């Protein structure tokens, strides 16, 4: 974790691209803030954003469609106690900013306009990725060629591959936050992602497999170490496994979760329930449980926005707070929440760099970054060998949680039976359901093989999507309900 002068360069770059063209300087910022402060407003912020994104997609061996999207705007937020007023404009111009500020401040009544002169200062930020421009990191013809190579690789591996769908997406967003406490922070965020889905067919039975990856870097990432091709191979492997899969069992049993992406368990079962907003309002099953033992001694879980280049990482969050590594569960004990500034203030805690928003047109909320469990001591083979009869689940689709009851689900897309300590035949995808507040008390073994996911996670909350990461070592959980069809 280093803080170098790349941040002040980002701040300068953001100012140049977002404020200067609109003729917005320190005086104009003060004028907008003055509209809000003084009206019994405790806090206000402006969030300027410019983003460019593109996507290319291939099917039937050809890249037939592509899309580019450009977006810019400014969100204006005013907070009075627990009240939030919010307005935004897709035009970064002073009159639009003043209109938005006037609308946002209306949550607090009375008061008068104030003349303010904020002592603006650089809030600092990390340097976890470079301000790359993925869209220009490859020629368009090379992007098309990359997807074509992925397709050819998938077909080359096995003649049962009947369809290959591959997509390549990249974006760069420049953000600038100005807070009423004078802090200014900026970030230039690259993000790339490549996904492959294949359909395989044998004797009239069809199945699919999907794989991908990415991070806060540029397209060159996919060209190194044959990464793009490895996704193709992985998608084919999964699809072929599923061609052989039998019906999944139904009922409560021992479940061994593989390392990496199965960490979506932690995201759903634990992470959402520890977000500050739900805990401040008392709507989470974890509310008021700081200091309680909620997991086995072997479990330590963190949310860490500071991992270099990771999809869920940020140099600075969307409220200008540098990200950090936050211990959520330490050796089984609940230690911390995931906080944005508003909820941290109302709960008398510190912000944790988790204030995130989908765009200028959305309000920030406490959101996860990269959520994972630290490695334990046990080799994964020993964990498998310890199970007489159970399920070994290594790949998953999405998950969801009911914050209030604590019930969560996540759906396996690649799973096997374990019989007498050995991995047996593959079984079809099944949804697994559990209870967040007690699932980690049932963790019986923690592997020494911590892995993070490949960079494909997107988290949805209140209609807002943000990129996230997850990870974990192999885990044995005694007593999860597996939703197959075989009694």
């Amino acid at each position, binding site marked *: 974790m280093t803080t170098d002068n790349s941040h002040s360069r980002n701040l300068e770059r953001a100012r140049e691209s977002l404020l200067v063209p609109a003729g917005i300087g320190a005086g104009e910022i003060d004028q907008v803030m003055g509209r809000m402060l003084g009206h019994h407003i405790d806090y206000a912020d402006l969030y300027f954003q410019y983003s460019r994104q593109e996507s290319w997609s291939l099917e039937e061996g050809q890249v037939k469609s592509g899309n580019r999207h450009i977006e810019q705007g400014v969100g204006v937020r005013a907070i009075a106690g627990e009240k939030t007023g919010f307005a935004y404009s897709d035009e970064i111009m002073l009159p639009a900013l003043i209109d938005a500020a006037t609308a946002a401040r209306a949550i607090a009544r009375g008061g008068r306009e104030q003349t303010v002169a904020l002592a603006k200062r650089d809030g600092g930020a990390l340097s976890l990725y470079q301000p790359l421009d993925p869209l220009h990191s490859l020629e368009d013809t090379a992007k098309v060629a990359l997807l074509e190579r992925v397709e050819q690789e998938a077909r080359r591996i096995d003649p049962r591959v009947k369809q290959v769908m591959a997509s390549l997406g990249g974006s760069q967003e420049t953000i600038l936050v100005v807070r009423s406490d004078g802090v200014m922070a900026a970030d230039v965020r690259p993000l790339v992602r490549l996904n492959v889905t294949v359909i395989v067919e044998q004797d009239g039975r069809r*199945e699919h497999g999907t794989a991908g990856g990415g991070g806060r870097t540029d397209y060159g990432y996919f060209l190194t170490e044959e990464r793009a091709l490895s996704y193709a191979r992985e998608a084919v492997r999964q699809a072929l496994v599923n061609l052989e899969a039998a019906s999944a069992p139904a009922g409560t049993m021992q479940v061994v979760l593989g390392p990496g992406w199965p960490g979506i368990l932690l995201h759903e079962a634990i992470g959402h329930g520890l977000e500050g907003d739900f805990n401040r309002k008392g709507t989470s099953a974890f509310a008021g449980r700081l200091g309680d033992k909620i997991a086995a001694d072997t479990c330590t879980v963190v949310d860490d926005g500071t991992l270099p280049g990771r999809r869920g990482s940020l140099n600075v969050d969307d409220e200008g707070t540098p990200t950090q590594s936050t211990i959520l569960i330490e050796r089984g004990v609940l230690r911390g929440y995931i906080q944005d500034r508003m909820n941290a203030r109302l709960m008398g805690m510190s912000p944790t760099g988790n204030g995130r928003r989908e765009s200028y047109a959305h309000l920030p909320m406490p959101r996860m970054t990269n959520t994972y469990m630290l490695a334990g001591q046990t080799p994964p083979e020993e964990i498998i060998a310890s199970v007489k009869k159970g399920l070994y689940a290594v790949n998953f689709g999405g998950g969801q949680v009911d914050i209030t009851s604590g019930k969560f689900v996540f759906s396996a897309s690649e799973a096997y039976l374990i019989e007498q300590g050995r991995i047996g035949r593959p079984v079809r995808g099944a949804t697994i359901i559990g209870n967040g507040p007690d699932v980690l008390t049932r963790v019986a073994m923690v592997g020494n093989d911590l892995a993070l996911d490949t960079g494909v996670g997107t988290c949805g909350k209140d209609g807002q999507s943000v990129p996230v990461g997850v990870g974990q070592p192999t885990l044995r959980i005694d007593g999860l309900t597996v939703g197959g069809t075989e009694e």
Partner: protein
Amino acid sequence: MDATITTHKRAPSLEDLAAQALDLARRQGASAAEVNAGFGNGLSVTVRKGDVETVEHHRDKSLSITVFFGERSGSASTADFRGQALSEAVMAACAIARHTAADPFNGLADPAHLARDIPDLDLHHPWPLSMEEAIDLATRCEAAAFAADPRIRNSEGATITTHDGTDVYATSHGFLGTVRASRHGLSCAVLGDDGHGAMQRDYEYAAVRDPRDLPAAEEIGRRAAHRTVRRLGARQIKTCQVPVLYEAQVARSLVSHLVSAISGPSLYRRSSFLVDSVDTALFPEWVHLYEEPHRKKAMGSAPFDGEGVETRYRDLVTDGILRRYCLDSYAARKLGLVTTANAGGVHNLTVAPGAEDLAGLLRTMGRGLFVTELIGFGINNVTGDYSRGAAGFWVEGGEIVHPVEEITIASNLRDMYKGLVAVGRDVDTRHNVCTGSWLLERMTVAGG
């Protein structure tokens, strides 16, 4: 040019902007192009525990363009309507089209299918709602939930939303259609406490085109309280195979899975469990599904689809037999079929209601699981395998015995459709898929 000058001029209409973009595309050498341009504004107010929590003012605009150079295409979009941004978007779309492969199925809709007359579907009822009125409605709604039952002790709040939007679709082959539509909603989510530390949450909402059609705010609040309180004391049940009754608002998802499986891309990629299923019996023979896109004031109404094709009443399933797919022009050409006016989705896809209300369906089921909430994404579109988290109620002798949670329900969609026993007359009209509750013959419930 000084950028601020443009804001003080009268803003160009969406139709003008669309024409401008089409003209730019033509001048770049595009052989055809289509433009979607939209503008909307709205207000969203949430009151929690009797106090204003958030006030959000929404104002959105966007323009997207797809250009064709013969059989090649590219698309781009922008939220900035100023001349330079518009021309950059058009150029970006053209640049992409230089790199995409020629696809003989690309292109605009066949002019013969385009909507000629655009009927007024009574979708536009703007609500000049002041912030004070919005706060008052939401406050009354939430207060009614708290007053309904002493076990309601916490709340996620009551939210009132109003949105007024205009969307224009224009093509280089002469189509120009404008739809003005409003959407208003009132929702309330509250938490109940069983007194032993276990909480449940549930919600109720209304979604309408015309604010005069909203139920009383207090009614929404009371229903939210009722839905929450009835879940208190929920427990797991043993793994079993039983009949399952999907409440209307979750039964809708079963229709959505069907639509997804019979949509163009799923079919031409052969990534659907329903490939080659037209003219086969998917449901028992009494089942009837149809689209009614011109229903006045309905949430799923549209005079034309996403590419200007005329919408009209169309059957989807009659006598239990699937009669057609859901296609846009591209998928139709690829499959050697004709567009079904489903570019952008279905329009008021309706499951013809049966004779019984919910209580009647519970009696018909006798013993089984009544599902009111589903979580997770355990649907495999390729195989039809289905496994989702659920919450609801255990039913014996046609009566609710106790609430149930932390279970999954699993089967295969093909078997579920075939095993449809009855559809209720309790039709949920809040979405573009309208159905009553569904009673299914048998599913595997996984529990303790």
